[in-house]
């Protein structure tokens, strides 16, 4: 480990002196960064407090660094550090994920460690704004699973079916000390004022899931299922069952870009008060014209609770018009206007029920 550290330092020194990029053959550093500003036309903030009626940089600004190294022909390590301003006013840097990969054969990899797992199409690289068309993936779908990484293991099995690549990825593990945004509806029971932004810890145990994807040159189809049991000792939530289904497709064909996804989550017992049963979907269509990619997204979050569930299902529709502009290779400028409307008397993804809210966002994404 020490030796690797010194190699890394040596590599950094060589790079700083403009030396050969490959002086240290098997360690690589890569990074990504997004600077984004948001502003809405409403005095009602987004539920995480980051989108408000004044210019704010907390929602989308982040920086990440990835370090990877080949240990030998079959083994490699990869890890990512991530710094964000999302949960409070301090810039927090965390070890987002990191694992050892072992290539069992040409078609089978086993990974162990802290693994970013693929709930959705872009979950694997959700922090890398440069990799997708929007400033942020549609919240009606992507905010539905607060767990983004597990401590555990997965298997990547790849096969070729004609001109299509199949990926089968079962995973198993735990996710302890996860932060969950406490719903506004639950705050009074905790003695907290409405409008507070509170995160509480919860543990997800016995998490098991599978991701199946079919892809070719221009399209990807995927489906996933996961189940786990969540506990949050502060609220007396103990081992409540959670199941999560998702499916989606993406396409990049003759300058036409399309994404669509669906999810459904089902949560039992008291945990339902914190994570009500919901379902949701979105569809994005874009058309690339040289350096410009204008795109349009419709998204919907729906209540899927029955009458005797304790939680309050949230409902919201949104329409987003955006454009991505390529600033050369490795950088993109994005601008979006979103009209979001909470439905059925709920607060949607805002602090309280409100008329429709218009959100303006701009961002620059780079990779380096």
């Amino acid at each position, binding site marked *: 480990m020490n030796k690797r550290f010194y190699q890394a330092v040596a590599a950094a020194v060589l790079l700083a002196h403009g030396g050969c990029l490959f002086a240290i053959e098997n360690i690589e550093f890569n990074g990504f960064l997004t600077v984004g500003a948001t502003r809405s036309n409403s005095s009602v903030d987004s539920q995480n407090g980051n989108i408000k009626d004044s210019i704010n940089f907390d929602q989308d600004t982040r920086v990440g660094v990835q370090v990877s190294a080949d240990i030998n022909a079959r083994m490699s390590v990869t890890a990512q550090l991530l710094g964000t301003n999302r949960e409070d006013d301090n810039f927090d840097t965390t070890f987002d994920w990191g694992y050892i990969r072992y290539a069992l054969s040409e078609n089978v990899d086993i990974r162990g460690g802290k693994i*970013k797992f693929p709930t959705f199409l872009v979950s694997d690289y959700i922090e890398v704004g*440069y990799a997708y068309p929007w400033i942020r993936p549609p919240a009606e779908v992507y905010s539905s699973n607060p767990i983004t990484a597990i401590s555990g293991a997965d298997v990547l099995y790849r096969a070729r079916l004609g001109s299509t690549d199949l990926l089968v990825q079962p995973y198993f593990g735990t996710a302890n000390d996860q932060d969950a945004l406490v719903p506004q509806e639950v705050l009074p029971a905790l003695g907290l004022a409405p409008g507070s932004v509170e995160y509480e810890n919860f543990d997800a145990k016995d998490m098991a899931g599978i991701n199946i994807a079919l892809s070719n040159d221009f399209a990807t189809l995927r489906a996933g299922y996961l189940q786990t049991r969540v506990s949050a000792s502060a609220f007396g939530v103990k081992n409540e069952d959670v199941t999560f289904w998702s499916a989606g497709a993406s396409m990049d064909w003759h300058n036409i870009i399309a994404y669509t996804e669906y999810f459904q989550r089902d949560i039992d017992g008291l945990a339902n008060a914190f994570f009500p049963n919901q379902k949701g979907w979105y569809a994005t269509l874009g058309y690339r014209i040289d350096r410009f990619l204008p795109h349009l997204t419709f998204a919907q979050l729906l209540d899927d609770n029955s009458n005797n569930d304790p939680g309050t299902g949230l409902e919201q529709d949104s329409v987003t018009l955006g454009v991505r502009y*390529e600033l050369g*290779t*490795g950088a993109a400028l994005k601008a979006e206007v979103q009209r979001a409307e909470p439905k059925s008397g709920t607060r949607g993804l805002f602090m309280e029920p409100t008329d429709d809210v218009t959100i303006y966002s701009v961002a620059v994404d780079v*990779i380096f």
Partner: protein
Amino acid sequence: MKNMLILLIALAGLPVFAARAELAIIVAPSTALDSINREQLQRLYLNRASRFPNGVRLIPVDQKTGSPAQAEFAEKVLGKSATELAKYWSRRMFSGKGHPPRQYRDDDEVMQQVAESEDLIGYVDAASVDDRVKVLLQIP
């Protein structure tokens, strides 16, 4: 001054000439492979496969991002513009699914690296090829 002008004109014209160049796909003479098709090449360079039906495993090497050779290879073989290729690799790399091929400065460097290793495969302007390497495919 006159020389400077000629140089500028030559530099301005360079991408035009380069864009018309024929690409040669090269390996070391001792590499146990005598031909390759475009689909195999594409899968190899997009890190979707590394082994050939006869069991041979090759590591692709690339030319510098922004070089005329790379832009041409990306368009003709990979079917992507330089920015689409950068996006493709950002998705693969930052999800831990693989790295883009190692890049070398120019045809000379690629020729030298490929000539010295039977594990590598590269592409250069067909005019740069000499008998240190074996040509598997020419792409007009």
